[in-house]
Structure formats: C-alpha cells, structure tokens
C-alpha cells in the first residue's frame, strides 16, 4: 500500500479478491488452450489410448470442449470448485488428492525455512545494528551478496555433494522425509536470511535516530541495551512486514530446491507433470498459488490493522 492512500474496506477487499481470482481462473483455464497441440490428442497418447476420431470426440465431449468457449469455462470452473481437478495421467490419481498429499511437504519446507531464517535474523540484525560495520554486519552483508549471486539449486547440489558424499552425515535422497528436509530447509532459510536481516537492522537503525533512543542513552543505557529495550519493537514490525511477501512466495518459490532434493512437494509434482505434458496439474497449481498468496496478503492486512491502530484509522 502506498503512502497517502486509504486501505480498502471489506467491500473493496471483496471486489479486489474477486477480480484477482477471476483473472487467475481465466488464465488457468486458458492454459489448456494455449498448449501447443491438441490437449485431447496429447491426453490420449500420454495414456497410451487409441487415437481415433471416436475416442477424440468422446473425450472432447467429456471435457466439454465441443461447446462454446464461455460454456467451456463455466464447465471447467464449476468442476474445479466442486473438487474435480482432473486426474493426473502420470500417477492415475485425482490431482486434488495429489496436492493434498504434497502440500504438507512444501509447507514444511517453506515454513521451516522461514522460521529458521527469523530465528537467526533477529540476533544477527541486532548485532549488526549494535555495531554497524562490525563482524555481524559484514557477515549479514556477505550472506546477502552470496545468495544474490549463487543459484539455490547449485548450492543444493554442492550441499548434497558435501554432506551426503564427502562427509556422509546426511542422506540426500533416501531415508525418512524429516531427514531429507534438513538440507533443503537450511537452504530456504539462507536465501531469506539476507533480506530479513537487512530489514530488521534498517528498522533498528532508523529507531536509533529518534529522540526516544537519545533519551534512553542519556539515562545511562548502553547502545545495545537501549536498542533492545526501545527499538526492538519497531524492528519486529518491520520484520513482520517483510515476512508477508516471503510467506506469499515460499510455497511456489521453493520449486528449484524441491527438484534438486527430489522432495515430493507440489512444485516438484508440477515440474514432473508438465514434463510429461500433464497440463491439468499446471492449471491446479496456478489456482492454488493464487489462493495462497491472496490468503497471505489478507491475513497480513488484518494483522497489520490489529497491531497498528494508526493503520485502520
């Protein structure tokens, strides 16, 4: 939300969310029409079914593709809303069921990584603000520079080589899921750490400029003490604000990590399915990500109103 603008009320929120979901659902619907080739023929040949005029016509009628475009969209939308997301050709199971099984893995990866990042970002950002230019500050900067230049999937491959091959501490592709999640969570955390630390540190340093901080120092508190007692709260607000987009990104944004570590999450499912031209999965994926992001931003907006009475006016 930019400065000088009022936040939308419940009606405004409803209109915006409905518009967003309408746009996204049309985009997801359009995917099937945008794929190169006839999706019906692709579906039949992927399943090793005979491609004859009869089977093509039958499937076309089943999917409602013989109707006008608007009717097709409504047919698809009502089906999708009632839980009929189609069947994955590759696994021969309903896509809804596949997502239900895999979403917890993606969430464990994303939330685990973000939680770890926050746990490290607060002490690191605090130490960086207590002594700008000091060791902690330079460490935080190094993490940022590193994660902006090193592709996450490459770091993942290097981590597998180091921990699973050279040191033999962790198993990368076999073993219980909890053990396989350790390295990926560390990598997700590392890639969020830089920006979270920077935001928290910047908020603390901004609070240091206020009269409140000067008063605390004049009272005799040391710099770290004064920052902790009087600036930390503001830093946390900044951190929560910075976490909102991170939460929005974290479900789909971990795609490369899921693929490198072979984790059975939704993004890995998408990559494998699309590789096998299983385009229904892409449709479901687009909608799931959009709903997730809408939910995150709505919750963050509500939380912001509750925490900061100035916002709600």
């Amino acid at each position, binding site marked *: 939300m930019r400065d000088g603008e009022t936040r939308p009320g419940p009606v405004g929120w409803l209109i915006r969310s409905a518009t*967003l979901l309408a746009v996204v659902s049309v985009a997801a619907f359009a*995917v099937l029409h*945008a*794929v*190169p080739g006839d999706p019906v023929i692709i579906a039949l040949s992927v399943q090793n079914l005979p491609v004859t005029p009869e089977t093509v016509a039958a499937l076309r009628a089943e999917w409602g593709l013989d109707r006008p475009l608007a009717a097709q969209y409504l047919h698809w939308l009502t089906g999708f809303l009632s839980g009929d997301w189609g069947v994955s050709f590759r696994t021969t199971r309903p896509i809804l069921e596949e997502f239900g099984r895999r979403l917890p893995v993606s969430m464990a990866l994303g939330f685990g*990584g973000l939680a770890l990042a926050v746990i490290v970002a607060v002490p690191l950002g605090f130490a960086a603000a207590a002594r700008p230019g000091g060791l902690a500050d330079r460490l935080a900067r190094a993490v940022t*520079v590193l994660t*902006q*230049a*090193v*592709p*996450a*999937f*490459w770091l993942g*491959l*290097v981590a*597998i*080589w180091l921990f699973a*091959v050279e040191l033999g501490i962790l198993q990368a592709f076999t073993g219980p899921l909890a053990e396989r999640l350790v390295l990926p969570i560390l*990598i*997700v955390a*590392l*890639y*969020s750490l830089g*920006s979270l630390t920077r935001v928290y540190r910047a908020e603390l340093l901004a609070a240091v400029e206020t009269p409140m901080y000067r008063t605390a120092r004049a009272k005799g508190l040391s710099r770290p003490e004064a920052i902790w007692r009087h600036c930390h709260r503001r830093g946390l607000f900044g951190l929560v604000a910075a976490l909102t*987009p991170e939460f*929005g*990104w*974290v479900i*789909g*944004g*971990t*795609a*490369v*990590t899921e*693929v*490198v570590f072979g984790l059975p999450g939704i993004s890995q499912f*998408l*990559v494998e399915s*699309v*590789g096998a031209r299983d385009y229904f999965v*892409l449709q479901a994926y*687009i909608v799931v*990500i959009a709903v997730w*992001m809408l939910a995150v*931003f709505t919750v963050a907006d509500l939380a912001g109103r509750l925490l900061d009475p100035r916002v709600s006016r």
Partner: protein
Amino acid sequence: MSGRGRGLTALGLLLAGLALASLWQPQDPFAIDLASRHAPISPSHPMGTDHLGRDLLSRMMLGAGNTAMVIVIVASLSFGLGTLVGVTAGLARGPIGSALIRTAEFVIAVPTLILALTITTLFGLSPVTAGLALGLATWGPYALLAHALTLRTLGQPHVLAARSLGVGRAGVAARHVVPETTDTLLTYLASDAGRTVVSYASLAFLGLGAETSQPDWGAMLFEYRGYVFDAPMLLIWPGLAITLTALTLNLALEPRPGHPGSRHRPKLKET
C-alpha cells in the same frame, strides 16, 4: 565515472565477453570422444571432459551466448515496458493511471519464477522465450519507479514553466520526463542483470520445454546433476560461471540506499 556509467560499462564489457566466447571455441563443443570420457584437467581440456568426452570449456563458452542473449532481452523488455507504463501512468493520472499502476503491482506480486515457468512451459524454452518470459515477469518495479520519477519531474519548477509556456504533454514527456527517468532506470537495469542470470539458470535447470541440443549453463547443471557423486567438477564449472557472472554484475553496481525505488526492488526467490 558515475554509478550508472560504471554499471553500464561493466554490463557492456561482460556481454561482449560472453558473446565473443559463444562465437569461437578451442574445440568442437559437440564432438563426442568416448575414449576420453571424464578426462581430468589438461592443456587440451582446461576444464576436463564430460560423460561423453566432450570438451567442457568449449561447451561452457558456447553456452555463454545464451546468457548474454537473455540479459539483453530481459533488460530491453523490462526497461522499455516499465518506462512506457510508468511514464504514461504519471502523465495520465486519474483512473487510467491508477489502473496501470495496479497492473504493475499485480505483476510484482506474482512470483517471477512461476510466471516464467508457465510461459516457457507453454511456448518452449529457448533464450528468446525465457528472455521474454522473465522480462514480462519483471517490468513491474521499473514501472513503479518510472511513475514516481515522472510525478517528481512534473512537479519541478522548470517543467511547470514549460507547461505554462504552452508545451504540450507529449513535449514535456519527451523533453523532460523520459530523459530524467531513463537516467535512474538505467542504474537499476545494470544491477538487475545479475538477477536475470540466476533466474535464467534456474529456468534452464528446471528445463521445462527446453531443447537440450544446445549447451547452456543451467541446462548443463541439470544434465550433469547425476554425476554429483562421481564427477563433481562437471557441476562446479557451470555453477562458477553463473555465480561469477551474477557477482560481477551485482558488485559493479550496488543500488544506492534511500533511493526512491529501493522499496520496490524486484524480488527473486530461487530457493
């Protein structure tokens, strides 16, 4: 030299180097030599050979061209589209302006990689489609920045003077707004290029809809990922190339803190 000059010079030199490397290689990057599979580093194979005995250095050099092409396409598209939308929104104001800005904000909210992944899935993955997809996914921050700069420029006394002297909107846009926004946006262009290198590598690594005949740094990492246990050097070289290219671009020009656009820095999640 100004920050912008430094960044653009670094970008230009790097692009020229990558393009040159893709034009000439010491050996045929496609020549298969099964007798010298996984050859170690030697004068004839400075980076060794891969599982088919192909010279890795030559493949790396040829692959550099893809990265250079993607940088050029993404930069032109996000810069061009961002300037167009941002300046138009600033000049138009009213409902049209706010609709354009809403669109830009929407594009920023959509995860870059997901959007790019969807586009390349549907239209195939080549440097051109990847460049277009990444450009379409990343013009948002440029539009917001151009919009903010346009509003600032329009409020300045010399622009007000020009308007009151009867210069029309188009004249003001061409003579005052665009030159001033371009200056700042070019700064971001240079520092954004590093991000582009990493996101293109991720797309190529996921490899949806890619043709695998052409060597490419990200695609090589995907192709060689099975050799992480037996021949890790095959993974080290392309990874180093991506990292060093991105690092050079990132360090050549760091965004200045407190810049009007620093709040809208494009975010890229690759984890």
